[in-house]
């Protein structure tokens, strides 16, 4: 019969799949309607760049130009920010229920236009239609539904918070639509307005979203989309009328943003790169784990920040696992993004393809064994085959660098301890995957991994209710869930804080001794690793009363003292795994012992600060109460059990940040110190504390309280000296996980700027004074939340 029909016989014999293209008619028609070029979307309408400049966006699967986009400049960003500012004022005034209705409408809108969005995304990004249709778009809709809910209950659940204001958001090209949703949904739900810059490779679904959202009734100015390149993003980051920057992208750019926003007072969340471990124990379901690798590294062409790119396999099963993995690679299909019968599409752009190619070459040159699936590859476009680099040594570039492509590297381990060690031996800490059928092993390892998300016997699972975000150089802040909401809110209690007034230190008045029996001379030392230590430099600094009387001398700590204190703090890591009950008991015990010497501390405070006896006593009493507060919280600041849409749970566990530097404010020498140290140690952190620079003697008196209160050595270390110098040492120390600095605005700016080495979490006051007696502003969950990272452990179950 006809030629077409004999094809049946051909397929019957070879049982190949044949083409299965998703229709792109609607998507192309939408592009055709914008054939003259897209404007920015500002104040509810498309507007061309003020400069008239534009750039082309390309189709990764063919390399052909797809659309013309406007190149955002200063005037465009200005206009977008001012439009957002106007809209935000009205938006925040709307009742939560009204905002919930808008968010709900957006969720419904996404579902009504799901296929159009999915097809445009696949064309623009190069990822398979399966992923946009079955994963990205449904998750995006879910994000809006979930956050419609937060808008609805905001007034009761976040009663002590207000919206941040105008948020600048910069999103990457790997999940353009999903990342847009992760950014927009919480921001809008909680009463903010947004200026969003999509990645220059993949701006189309953001523009489509803006168009559809407006049609769905979203008021003008709430979402403004300015397209452009890195420079456009920089303009947004630098804009003075932006209250917060939320960025997802590379660690390099994240660092630049941290540096540029330092001291600006802008709130910042960074969701950055990773080199996430994928750990396979000998008692894993090996076939399940092999399939897990497919979902880990050959999902979205491996262009996934949380991709399980570092496979760690227990040595005894390594050969079998690799054999099965290679067999599985052979059945992967790479093809056109709109083909419904593929596993992988195109790499987003030629520049990324060359980067992947050169890193793989480097890996091979550094000793890795290369295996690539021998499968049909599409011609033209940016395609790269599924790739495995095995026998990779930790010293190799590909073991540490994020490749951001379909390339897994693998190495072996011998014991669970070694697996944890190898897994955590990374500058990153985004995600991890653990494969074992033994619950004790899997959960123990999950708890010990330095990662914001851990999937047990699974990988790359996401849900709007389960926070996502990293540790270490994978960034800070969480997206999704309650913790994600806080990133778009600010505490009411801090709204009224005024700039701290700094009084100049009094001149020392020299006095001469008297012919009488003096008090025995006491040398205040540093307190490091549970021992009193002389300062490394062996210099002292004077402590004077407000009237200029020398009332003591303290050690002049330097960067070596900081180094020693950090070493001691790390050695005390057992504190994080001490029982919460134990930590609570010790906090109460500190309070008890402080209470026993309350009068002495009050006298000391009076002598240093000139505070009245009653004010000084009040400070000591408030310090005792504050210790009780955190003793109370120590066994109550707990995680939650999420119920994501799977048979299983996700455990949101607050985890200590690690070693935290604390620069105490100049005022309230005892209460300031306690207010910052207590929440940190209550949650399992170890601290290196720099006491109030002008009034450090309360802190040096305090170490004898610590010594008698069963505080393990190294949990609290005290280094006296110049706040600025010691803050600099702490901020640049790459083994310090976080730094809390209270003092001048300059101190805040410096700390934020210098924190970029390891992207430590910073908590600063920008020179605004806190009323440490005000419990709403000075204690409780505001501090506890900043003392921990939430780790979400996904545990699917079933037999």
């Amino acid at each position, binding site marked *: *019969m006809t030629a*077409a*029909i*004999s*094809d*049946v*016989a*051909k*397929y*019957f*014999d*070879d*049982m*190949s*799949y*044949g*083409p*299965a293209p998703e229709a792109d008619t609607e998507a192309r028609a939408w592009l055709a309607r914008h054939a003259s070029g897209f404007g920015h979307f500002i104040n509810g309408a498309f507007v061309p760049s003020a400069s008239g400049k534009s750039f082309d966006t390309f189709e990764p699967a063919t390399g052909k130009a797809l659309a013309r986009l406007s190149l955002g400049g200063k005037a465009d960003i200005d206009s977008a920010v001012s439009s957002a500012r106007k809209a935000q004022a009205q938006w925040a005034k709307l009742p939560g229920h009204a905002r919930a209705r808008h968010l709900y409408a957006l969720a419904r809108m996404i579902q009504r236009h799901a296929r159009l969005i999915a097809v445009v995304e696949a064309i623009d990004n190069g990822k398979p239609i*399966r992923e946009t*249709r*079955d994963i990205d778009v449904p998750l995006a809709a879910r994000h809006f539904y979930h956050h419609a809910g937060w808008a609805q209950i905001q007034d009761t659940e976040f009663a002590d918070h207000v919206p941040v204001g105008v948020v600048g958001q910069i999103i990457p090209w790997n999940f353009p639509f999903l990342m847009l949703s992760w950014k927009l949904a919480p921001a809008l739900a909680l009463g903010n307005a947004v200026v969003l810059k999509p990645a220059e490779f993949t701006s189309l679904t953001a523009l489509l979203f803006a168009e559809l959202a407006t049609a769905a009734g979203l008021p003008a100015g709430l979402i403004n989309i300015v397209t452009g390149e890195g420079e456009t993003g920089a303009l947004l980051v630098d804009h003075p009328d932006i209250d917060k920057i939320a960025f997802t992208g590379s660690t390099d750019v994240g660092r630049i943003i941290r540096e540029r926003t330092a001291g600006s007072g802008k709130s910042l969340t960074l969701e950055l790169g990773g080199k996430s471990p994928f750990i396979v124990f000998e*008692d*894993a*379901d*090996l*076939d*399940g*784990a092999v*399939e*897990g690798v497919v*979902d880990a590294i050959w999902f979205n062409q491996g262009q996934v920040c949380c991709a399980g790119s570092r496979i760690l396999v227990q040595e005894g099963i390594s050969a079998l696992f690799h*054999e099965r993995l290679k067999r599985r690679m052979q*059945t992967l*299909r790479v093809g056109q993004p709109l083909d*419904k*019968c*593929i*596993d992988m599409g195109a790499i987003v752009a030629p520049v990324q393809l060359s980067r992947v190619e050169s890193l793989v070459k480097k890996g091979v040159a550094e000793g890795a064994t290369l295996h690539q699936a021998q499968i049909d590859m599409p011609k033209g476009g940016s395609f790269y085959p599924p790739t495995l680099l095995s026998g990779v040594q930790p010293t190799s570039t590909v073991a540490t660098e994020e490749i951001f492509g379909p390339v897994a590297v693998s190495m072996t381990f011998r014991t669970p301890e070694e697996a944890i060690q190898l897994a955590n031996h990374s500058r990153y800490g985004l995600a991890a995957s653990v494969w074992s*059928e033994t619950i004790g092993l899997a959960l123990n390892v999950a708890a010990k991994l330095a990662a914001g998300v851990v999937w047990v*016997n*699974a990988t790359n699972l996401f849900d709007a209710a389960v926070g996502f975000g990293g540790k270490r150089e994978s960034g800070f802040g969480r997206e999704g869930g309650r913790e994600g909401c806080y990133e778009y809110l600010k505490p009411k209690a801090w709204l009224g804080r005024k700039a701290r007034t700094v009084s100049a230190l009094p001149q020392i008045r020299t006095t001469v001794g008297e012919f009488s029996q003096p008090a025995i001379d006491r040398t205040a030392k540093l307190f490091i690793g549970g021992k009193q230590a002389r300062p490394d430099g062996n210099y002292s600094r004077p402590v004077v009363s407000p009237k200029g009387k020398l009332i003591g001398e303290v050690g002049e700590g330097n960067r070596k003292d900081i180094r020693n204190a950090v070493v001691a703090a790390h050695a005390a890591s057992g504190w994080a795994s001490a029982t919460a009950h134990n930590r609570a008991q010790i906090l109460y015990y500190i309070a008890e012992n402080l209470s026993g010497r309350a009068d002495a501390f009050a006298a000391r405070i009076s002598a240093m600060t000139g505070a009245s006896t009653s004010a000084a006593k009040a400070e000591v009493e408030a310090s005792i109460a504050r210790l009780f507060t955190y003793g109370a919280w120590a066994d109550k600041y707990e995680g939650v059990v999420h119920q994501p849409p*799977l*048979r*299983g749970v996700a455990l949101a566990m607050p985890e200590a940040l690690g070693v935290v530097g604390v620069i105490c404010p100049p005022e309230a020498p005892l209460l300031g110190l306690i207010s910052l140290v207590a929440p940190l140690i209550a949650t399992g952190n170890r601290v290196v504390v720099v006491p109030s620079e002008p009034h450090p003697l309360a802190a040096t008196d305090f170490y004898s309280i610590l010594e008698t209160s069963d505080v393990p050595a190294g949990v609290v270390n005290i280094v006296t000296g110049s706040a600025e110098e010691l803050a600099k040492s702490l901020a640049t120390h790459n083994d310090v996980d976080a730094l809390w600095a209270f003092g001048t605005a300059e101190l805040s700016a410096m700390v934020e700027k210098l924190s970029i080495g390891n992207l430590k979490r910073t908590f600063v006051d920008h020179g605004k004074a806190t009323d440490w007696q005000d419990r709403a502003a000075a204690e409780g969950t505001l501090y506890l939340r900043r003392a921990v990272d939430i780790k979400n452990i996904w545990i*699917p*179950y*079933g*037999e």
Partner: protein
Amino acid sequence: MPGGSQLEAEVAHRRDTADHAGGVKLSNHASLRNPGMALDLSWVMDTRVNLSATERRVATLPGRRTVKKDAQAAWLLKAVTCIDLTTLNSDDTPERVKRLCAKAMSPVRPDILDALGMGARSITTGAICVYHRYVATAVEALGNSGIPVAAVSTGFPAGLSPHHLKVKEIEASVADGAKEIDIVITREHVLTGNWSALYDEMTEYRAACGDAHVKAILGTGDLKTLRNVAKASLVCMMAGADFIKTSTGKEGVNATLAVTLTMLRAIRAYEERTGIKIGYKPAGGISAAKDVLNYQFLMKEELGREWLEPDLFRIGASSLLADIERQLEHHVTGAYSALNRHPMG
């Protein structure tokens, strides 16, 4: 189609070398028999199956693989050749069985086959599957069509008759001309972890089958856990099963994709260690053309191209064929079809 001809050569080679004793040359028994192996308990006990991971794989596969148009018609036609056209009802009669045999020999309307360019091919179902009582009837009705008769046996479906009677039942079916015996295992052995009892039972069934191929029905709906399914699969293969089969069609839950994936991975592991290819037969509950495609995708992805042919893949079904016929007619005419346009089986 170099792939196709290569495969045919391979199949022909196996046909020549396989040891088939006399009788009608069967087109669907090309694979080497499974000689079995000693029971390896440590292998059995090492078996681990993660339910959620298994479910994720089968849930996402239909999004990763699909066939359209001519390819879809071809795949459905291939599925027809893998069907064990089955009647296992208490009201079966010789005439009912004969009618089914006629359908097995001509499962798709000749005009549809012509329109698909497949008129010259001999398209039949993979086998006819009946109770022992109707084996002789079916053998006679199928004549020299080459279609094998499969007999369910060993006290199907519960498998709880006296052991010696179960062995006798196999022998009787073989004597009546059955070329395939679908035995049911004693589920108790799995549920109590008595793997050596399961192994011994299966070994004896295999011996009783002689030259007839033996399919081991696991009753996966009774075994409940995928771990049980995987262990039972391994033990039956070690004891010489040529095929492993999900279910009798009488359990509360029959073939599922998750159970299928688990059994296919067991088959792959067995081949990995022994080099022997074991066939797979899902049974019960596969009644729609779109469902059978997902099973075929799993076969191809998890085991490979060879496992799409009737010597390594059978589908136990009764109403599936009718749905495939409608889909094929729709493919040819572009109009949705109706059941009454295709002859009954």
